[in-house]
């Protein structure tokens, strides 16, 4: 092998621009824009969001634009198949199934959102207090949670139904008594993890007050967990409500929730299947879409998942 001589003159000093070295090519985005950009890439989540918006709009305005109210009975029109006048048919009292389904969806969603909101409020407060105070306070609060988890939810709900009148708020209360436990556990775990992170230590070293540490460091880093868990809370609340109505301890006639409708349809399944199929389809759509959207949000909201 012969050595190839490269003459000195051919070397040129590479000039590195100091500004360019520290340059970041990525456009400057806020956290919200960034999350939305990444959520948009997830086709399934966007579809779910779209379907959910339609379902919610129908639940809000469907009953308003229906020709019949959900409690109007018309004994000349019982068990009609779906037609132009009655898009989803009529039930055993001749009530418009279209109006009843959207009224039912409205009530189911109302119950679910209220229950999820109460879960969120109690769960986040309980979990955060438990994690921040630690020691004996934490131990006692965790035992309370364990006791609540130990009692089957169905028994609490049935006992509650015995002493309270059947209605929306009884169901919301029943769902909330134990529903917040998961949220409290997740928030506690997250805050315990954050508490010993170096950026929280740095804030303490800088003399930041406890209140500021909670507001600026702990809560913002827990929001992702909270939002996602609330997203999963909603379908599970809808499902529990449907289940309670189905076994007959939910809402009373003429009020309709999706569970009540499914229960009614189930009795006449062999002759009039459309009375079961349509409310079942709506509940499936809501549950699947909330789950997919929750999954998509989890990925989109986590800044560490960014590329």
């Amino acid at each position: 092998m012969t050595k190839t001589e490269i003459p000195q003159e051919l070397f040129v000093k590479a000039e590195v621009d100091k500004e360019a070295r520290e340059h970041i090519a990525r456009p400057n985005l806020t956290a919200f824009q960034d999350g939305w950009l990444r959520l948009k890439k997830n086709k399934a989540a966007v579809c779910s969001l779209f379907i959910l918006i339609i379902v919610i709009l129908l639940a809000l305005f469907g009953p308003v634009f229906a020709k019949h109210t959900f409690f109007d009975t018309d004994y000349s029109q019982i068990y009609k198949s779906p037609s132009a006048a009655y898009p989803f048919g009529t039930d055993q009292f001749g009530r418009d199934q279209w109006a009843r389904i959207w009224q039912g969806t409205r009530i189911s969603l109302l119950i679910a959102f209220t229950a999820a909101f109460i879960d969120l409020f109690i769960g986040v407060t309980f979990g955060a207090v438990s994690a921040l105070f630690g020691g004996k306070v934490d131990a006692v609060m965790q035992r309370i949670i364990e006791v609540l988890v130990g009692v089957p939810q169905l028994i609490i709900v049935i006992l509650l139904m015995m002493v309270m009148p059947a209605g929306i708020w009884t169901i919301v209360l029943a769902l909330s008594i134990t529903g917040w436990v998961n949220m409290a556990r997740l928030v506690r775990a997250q805050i315990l993890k954050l508490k010993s992170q170096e950026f929280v230590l740095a804030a303490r070293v800088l003399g930041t007050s406890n209140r500021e540490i909670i507001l600026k460091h702990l809560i913002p880093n827990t929001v992702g967990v909270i939002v996602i868990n609330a997203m999963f809370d909603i379908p599970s609340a809808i499902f529990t409500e449907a289940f309670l109505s189905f076994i007959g301890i939910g809402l009373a006639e003429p009020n309709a929730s999706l569970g009540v409708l499914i229960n009614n349809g189930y009795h006449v399944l062999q002759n009039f299947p459309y009375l079961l199929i349509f409310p079942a389809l709506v509940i499936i759509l809501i549950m699947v879409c909330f789950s997919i959207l929750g999954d998509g949000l989890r990925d989109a909201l986590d800044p560490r998942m960014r590329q």
Partner: protein
Amino acid sequence: MPEEKVILQVKNLKRYFNVGKNQTLKAVDDVSFSIYRGETFGLVGESGCGKSTLGRTIIRLYGATGGSVRFDGADVHGKMSAAQSHELSRRMQMIFQDPYASLNPRMKVMDIIAEGIDAHHLAKSAQERAQMVVDLLEVVGLQEEHANRFPHEFSGGQRQRIGIARALAVNPDFVIADEPISALDVSIQAQVINLLKKLQEERKLTYLFIAHDLSMVKYISDRVGVMYLGSMAELAESRELFDNPLHPYTQALLSAIPLPDPDLEQSRSRVPLQGSIPSPINLPECCHFCSRCPKATEQCRKEAPKMVEVKPGHFVACHLMKSPQA
């Protein structure tokens, strides 16, 4: 050294952790030293020897189990008013080890750096606050447009410089650097170290520099303390310690530094250490190094050695050093 030059005096500092029934982990056990104004005090030792715990106890992230830390004459763990305590937190700052964990991923660089400015109300208006942040970014070699970015958009070295800017925002006198370079690439290490040196000259800072990279400590420190299992083994001026190590542990440690010259590296003789570091839980009363020391005697296994000044400014905790060398 005259008394007024001492900025930080650590005296018999102890920090124990209860790790179970009748089990105490003595992370820092009876450590004493002083740091002089304007110097860099290097603290070395292997993983788990209590370096970081010592740093965190000094800056009050942990309470002290015993002993005292005096900063400018005031006992930092003693009783003091909220205002005094707040002022103390302005004067003592810390740079953290992991640049990925030490910045809040949800906050913009502007708010991260301004955190200390907000906590101590150093800026009178929003514009002044923004200007201070931009100035600090320039000091650490970053640009104004970086202020509106989130930490995950930066490289490790850039993040560490943001951490440095955050510590400097409150104009501290004393900075504890807790392994500030161990998570960075070698090329970036030099950049950060040179920045720290430059800042020290410009702002008359005093550093407690915690590290396990000996050549880096040699480069930056004026005086070096060597820790082993929670206690100080040897303390001397940097040059004296590296040229003339007296403690068997320091000798072993220094002999492990690789040399850049391959010919010298070939002939480098190492002092091998037998065994591994014992568990720091419920240590018996003895020289903690006796289980691995090639020169251990009966006395070493029976009583803990005291720090002895063998030469002016050179302290060793070893029974073999009882009398100044003949």
